[in-house]
């Protein structure tokens, strides 16, 4: 009995300490407990507000990623707002306490212009991405040159080897920059293709992600001799590819896509897609923050920052 107590008592003491330790560890190390403690803020020097269209496509995701990366590099914070016709966010941006605004205007309307004017009146630096709504010394335009985009589409179209091309150019509300500068895109396209371009058709898709399918069916029904369909949005590209496959027109109707999503790359490798034009959204986001920071610090920066454009083609199938 005595031996039993001599053994059991220290054993129970040990078990008690173990349980106490486990309980303490649970209390101290659990993420909920940790998050409950007053987190010390990683203080930043400035805050910039980005106003982007309500689109989930990869372009804006990567643009945000670029902006976040720049914010980390330049000791500042960024916040993203959705730019919709109904939202008051952009109108009230001048009251938000941000040190600068970056906006991807989907259209140039009165409300947008007034809101930008109000922001600029407050002396806040403004970066306009892809689409320049107002021109002011306090603003910077960052993006790709639409003329170059047209030229890039033309270069890919030429790689098809066909002549007397009947090309359909599909703009999209999801990529308002090219839509806004449609004339520049078309000038670039025409100037490059010259006589090879027999006819250019243009259509526009809405924010509806599957809108492109209806547009393509309608287009092909009306113009069955279309040689190339060029798209200006990655989502529209994928929907169009599926429509061409469904219509069994692969090879007969060539597709010039937009974006460098993995699925688009795979279709390029399979020869379903002729090629794709790719802007650099990460670079755009990064440059936007850098420009805002520079304007905040120095009071001015370059009026236009070109982030360039890339072309993806299937080198093995290229002719």
């Amino acid at each position, binding site marked *: 009995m005595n031996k039993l107590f001599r053994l059991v008592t220290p054993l129970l003491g040990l078990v008690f300490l173990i349980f106490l330790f486990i309980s303490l560890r649970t209390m101290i190390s659990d993420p909920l407990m940790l998050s409950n403690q007053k987190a010390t803020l990683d203080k930043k020097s400035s805050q910039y507000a980005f106003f982007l269209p309500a689109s989930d496509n990869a372009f804006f995701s990567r643009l945000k990623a670029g902006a976040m990366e720049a914010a980390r590099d330049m000791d500042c914070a960024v916040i993203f707002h959705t730019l919709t016709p109904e939202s008051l966010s952009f109108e*009230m941006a001048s009251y938000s*306490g941000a040190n600068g605004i970056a906006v991807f205007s989907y259209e140039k309307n009165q409300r947008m212009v007034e809101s930008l004017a109000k922001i600029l009146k407050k002396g806040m630096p403004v970066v306009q991405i892809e689409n320049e709504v107002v021109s002011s010394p306090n603003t910077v335009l960052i993006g790709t040159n639409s003329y170059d985009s047209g030229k890039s589409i033309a270069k890919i179209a030429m790689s098809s080897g066909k002549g007397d091309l009947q090309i359909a150019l599909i703009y999209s509300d999801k990529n308002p920059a090219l839509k806004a500068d449609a004339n520049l895109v078309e000038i670039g396209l025409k100037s490059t293709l010259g006589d090879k371009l027999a006819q250019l058709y243009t259509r526009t898709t809405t924010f509806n992600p599957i809108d492109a399918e209806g547009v393509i069916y309608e287009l092909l029904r009306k113009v069955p001799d279309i040689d190339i369909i060029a798209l200006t949005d990655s989502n529209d590209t994928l929907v169009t590819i599926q429509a061409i496959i469904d219509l069994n027109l692969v090879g007969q109707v060539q597709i010039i896509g937009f974006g460098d999503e993995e699925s688009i790359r795979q279709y390029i490798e399979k020869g379903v897609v002729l090629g794709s034009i790719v802007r650099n959204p990460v670079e755009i986001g990064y440059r936007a923050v850098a420009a805002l920071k520079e304007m905040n610090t120095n009071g001015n920066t370059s009026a236009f920052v070109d982030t360039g454009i890339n072309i993806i083609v299937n080198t093995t199938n290229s002719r």
Partner: protein
Amino acid sequence: MTRNSLRVRLLFYLSISMIIVILSLGFILVNSLSLQNIAHHRFQEEHYFQEVQTFLVDLQDPLEKYLTDRSSSALARLLFLIEVIREKIPPDRPISSDETYLMKREIYFLIDAYVAQVNQIIELKRGRKVVEYIDSYREMTNLYTHISNEIDKVSLRGFRVQLGEYRSFLDLFRRIQIQNMLLVVVATAFAYSLLMQMVNNITRPMLQLSEMAGQLSNGRFEIPDVHFSSVDEVNLVAMAFNHMKNSIHHYINELQKQTEMEQQIMTERLRNLKMEQLLKRMELYTMQAQMNPHFLFNTLNTGVQLAIVEEADRTAEFMENLAALFRYNIRGKRFFVPLRHEIEGLKLYYAILQIRFPKTLMLVLDIDETLVDRFNCPAMILQPLVENSVLHAFKHIDKTGTIKVRVSLDQTVLVISVSDNGIGMPEDLVKSLLTPHTRDYQLGPKVMGLENVIQRCYFFYPNQKDVIDIQTAPGTGTEIVIRIHTEVEPCIEL
């Protein structure tokens, strides 16, 4: 009251047990409060913004009232609410990379702008700048709507985050509850074990002591002392018990020794009694060996005087020798006498025998005269031995009987020999005579003179088996030899 006393130990163990249980319960309370705090903290921000939103809503009514009828009470209420809202908004708004925080920060700035807008409207109203204040009011309304939207957005975001963490919170809650329950169970068991150990420390020695008491009651005093490392009181009881056990053991040993000693004394007494009895028996032997000497002596003296009166000289000489022999025989009752006395007694006896047997008996004395005054010998040994030869050795023999008495010293042994040339003794008689009498030996009514001498020799020299010896053969005579070791003291003091 020492540190090891029962009271202190009891207090200590009880305190420790209570502290363990209280600590466990306290720990559980802290856990519960922490969980409660988590739950509270999760919705604190949302609650705060809802409160701010309520103030903003409350502000609309007095503002509209003031703008419509310029009510001073509405203005007072308005200004009061503006101050309340200002106090609610944190003045320090550092910038952070956390998106939710940035959203909240923007709301603070928007509220600042809203309050400034309200103030501006009040001023414009006072200045009757109707167009401007209508524009400002529109802007303020937009701001209010936007702030409400943003607050809703932040709250929704917060609720979504909380919803995402709700399962984690439930998991944590369940885990902590189970751990708490186990902790309480283990803590209680530990406290109970501590108490039981203390109780065992006290009861175990008591049980051992009771067992030992049982062993002591069975007479096992040789069991080792008990030593406990228990409380002082128990240790003292153990010490007292050891002392008691050792004392009882000591007393019992003493009693045993005393009993043994008494037994020895009793044995000694018994032995002495038996010795005394033997002595008395010896005395009886001696007395039996004596006739009524005084009466005979006086009678003989009368006979001597009568013979002298009647002029019978040989009779007178005979009776005188006989009287002298009696005189010798009734000497003092001494067990040992000088050897000379024995020789002289023998000579008197022979003088008498010569009158009885003038031609048939001859006594030859071969005695070293240097020895007769140096040594003692048991009294009355020579005359009985010679008398034995005279009475038994020459029966039915016609020749002259010769008895030879020789006294010599063989180193330290005094050798006294009486021999005759008679008929000898039967072997069974010799064996019977040389057998020492036991204590239980019953003396016969008549003891032979030779037997008397032999037994007395054995009595005086019990450890010397060769003190007396008989050598005999039919027709060749008998020799009785007494060997007295002069360096050995006889067993009875003279």
